[in-house]
């Protein structure tokens, strides 16, 4: 939320000249946007050339972007530390799976299920938010962590007495997205161009991602977004200024959860198989790491964090093994182990050298600057 350069408004009579953020863009920005759009449109075909697996990895990376953006509303905007966020992803995924698979013999179209999934996840968000309204920081983190585990354990055990979730076996043969006979689940040929299944989903995900980014930016730059930031900064002062903190916190939980629910539905359709294993605590931590690493509260930072933490482990997966073979002629350390080791090391280094994240929001960055140099209360005008 930058309101132009400081010192610009000096006269009392001068109206606020700058347009509201995101209203007008110069021509160069449009050229940049067009170039980026073209690059993103061609990307899956380039990746297919390297290996179809990379398109799938990209799709998962976009899903993580959704999750990270959803969690950013709760953690970055409203300042509520949530360690059980993956539960909403699970709720969305299972909603889709139950309504579009042979498990119950239901096969509803995806454009009906995704909103239902968002709504149910939203309900769970309120369910988590309501009892935790008075908690903050570490206390809230513990409760949300417990919530995430409860949801996972329920998913794991709701096979008896009534088989709702099929327990640890998970749900198979989930329907892919279909629009009027066009299925995302099969490759299509346009002329000589083969558009594979993951590429179908890639385009769909990309469109939804753009919508989600716009939504996030608009939310942040609004009366509601400011109220969240006020709660993050000082809850007592926010209440004294007339902000209904209860409603605003519930709203943050509900909005964040709906994002997770939609992402879960898409995950379900893409994988066509889900089980409780996909919704474990480590996943919650991973999404939170994406938000923190990218830059809490900064929409683009969060996206960078999500992409990085999605791709880097995969790149390491494909390089660590061969590198050892080339250097030592044999595999000394299991690639999986060394991959997580390097990943952890990278995270520690990042937090040491860029504690505010890769792309910190202006607000966050300054917060950490003063934290490092105590006594610097004044700053430059």
């Amino acid at each position: 939320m930058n309101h132009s350069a400081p010192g610009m408004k000096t006269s009392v009579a001068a109206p606020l000249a700058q347009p509201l953020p995101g209203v007008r863009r110069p021509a160069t920005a449009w050229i940049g946007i067009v170039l980026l759009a073209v690059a993103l449109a061609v990307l899956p075909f380039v990746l297919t050339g390297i290996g179809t697996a990379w398109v799938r990895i990209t799709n998962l990376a976009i899903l993580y972007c959704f999750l990270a953006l959803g969690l950013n509303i709760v953690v970055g905007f409203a300042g509520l530390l949530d360690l059980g966020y993956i539960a909403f992803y699970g709720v969305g995924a299972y909603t889709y799976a139950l309504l579009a698979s042979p498990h119950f013999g239901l096969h509803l179209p995806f454009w009906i299920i995704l909103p239902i999934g968002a709504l149910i996840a939203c309900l769970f968000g309120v369910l988590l938010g309501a009892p935790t309204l008075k908690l903050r920081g570490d206390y809230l983190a513990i409760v949300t962590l417990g919530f995430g585990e409860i949801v996972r354990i329920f998913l794991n055990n709701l096979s008896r007495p009534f088989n709702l979730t099929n327990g640890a076996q998970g749900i198979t043969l989930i329907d892919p997205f279909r629009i009027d006979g066009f299925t995302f689940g099969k490759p299509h040929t346009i002329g000589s161009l083969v558009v594979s299944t993951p590429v179908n989903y890639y385009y769909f995900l990309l469109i939804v991602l753009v919508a989600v980014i716009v939504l996030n930016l608009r939310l942040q730059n609004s009366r509601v977004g400011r109220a969240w930031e006020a709660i993050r900064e000082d809850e007592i002062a926010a209440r004294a200024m007339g902000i209904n903190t209860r409603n605003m916190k519930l709203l943050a939980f509900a909005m964040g959860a709906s994002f997770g629910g939609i992402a879960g539905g898409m995950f379900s359709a893409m994988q066509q198989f889900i089980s409780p294993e996909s919704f474990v605590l480590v996943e919650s931590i991973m999404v939170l790491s994406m938000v923190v690493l990218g830059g809490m509260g900064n929409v683009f930072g969060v996206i960078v964090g999500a992409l990085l933490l999605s791709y880097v482990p995969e790149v390491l997966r494909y390089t660590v093994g061969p590198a050892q073979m080339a250097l030592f002629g044999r595999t000394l350390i299991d690639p999986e182990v060394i991959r997580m080791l390097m990943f952890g090391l990278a995270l520690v280094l990042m937090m040491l050298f860029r504690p505010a994240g890769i792309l910190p929001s202006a607000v966050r960055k300054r917060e950490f600057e003063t934290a490092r140099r105590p006594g610097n209360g004044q700053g430059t005008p």
Partner: protein
Amino acid sequence: MTGEVRPVLLDAQGITKRFGGVHALSDVDFQIRRGEIYGLIGPNGAGKTSLFNVLTGIYPADGGRFVFDDRPLIGLKPNEVAEHGVARTFQNIRLFANLSALENVMIGRHVRTRAGVFGAILRDRRTMDEERAIEKDAYELLAFVGVHRRANDLAKHLAYGDQRRLEIARALATEPKLLALDEPAAGMNATETAGLKSLLEQIRARGVTILLIEHDMKLVMSVCDRVLVLDYGKKIAEGPAAEVQRNEKVIAAYLGGGVELAVRRRTSPEVRSAVQ
């Protein structure tokens, strides 16, 4: 200063607040009239800030009632109290430190504006008009208190006196009928305090009634129409500033009971000004 009797804005009766065995406030009655600057003084720990916190809903009261603008205030949440038209500042400044000065005041407009999630997402005309109005009003308030040149600086980067003024601007943004200021002059030098005094008078000229906690007796005596004195959670005096100043109980509260008048000369300037 006395003259005509204005209608009552805030009627407090029997306000009681206990913290465990400590009686922070016992049975405090007072009335604030419209357009008044009403002082609230007393030694440290007398219960002044507790009274503020009970009034603004941060603490629930253990007894008594507030009638504000003919409506009861007791039992309301802080945000509801703000909605009714009571705004406050804090003794230890509580700005939104990592937001700009302008954003701080814009947040103050929250309670008088309406846009919700859908407005934010769709950015329809009404929302955008409202958003522009919020920004304009906030900027005008910054100019009113004289911090508009720092509109885009983070609140925490403002000079101390400006932070106090910004907090007043943020409170005014909620369009209060009663503005409750908790030691606004604390830490200010004589020039800044003089500026604050004229600001208080300008706020009153806008039709806002002021409830003022202050230790700077010179300021209290020069700006307040009437003063309420608390000691150990009890009301010990109320009335026009000049009368309260001569009250035996007030003198005793500030100096300690049974102290000879000769001691006065050796006490702090603040106390001396209270006594004189």
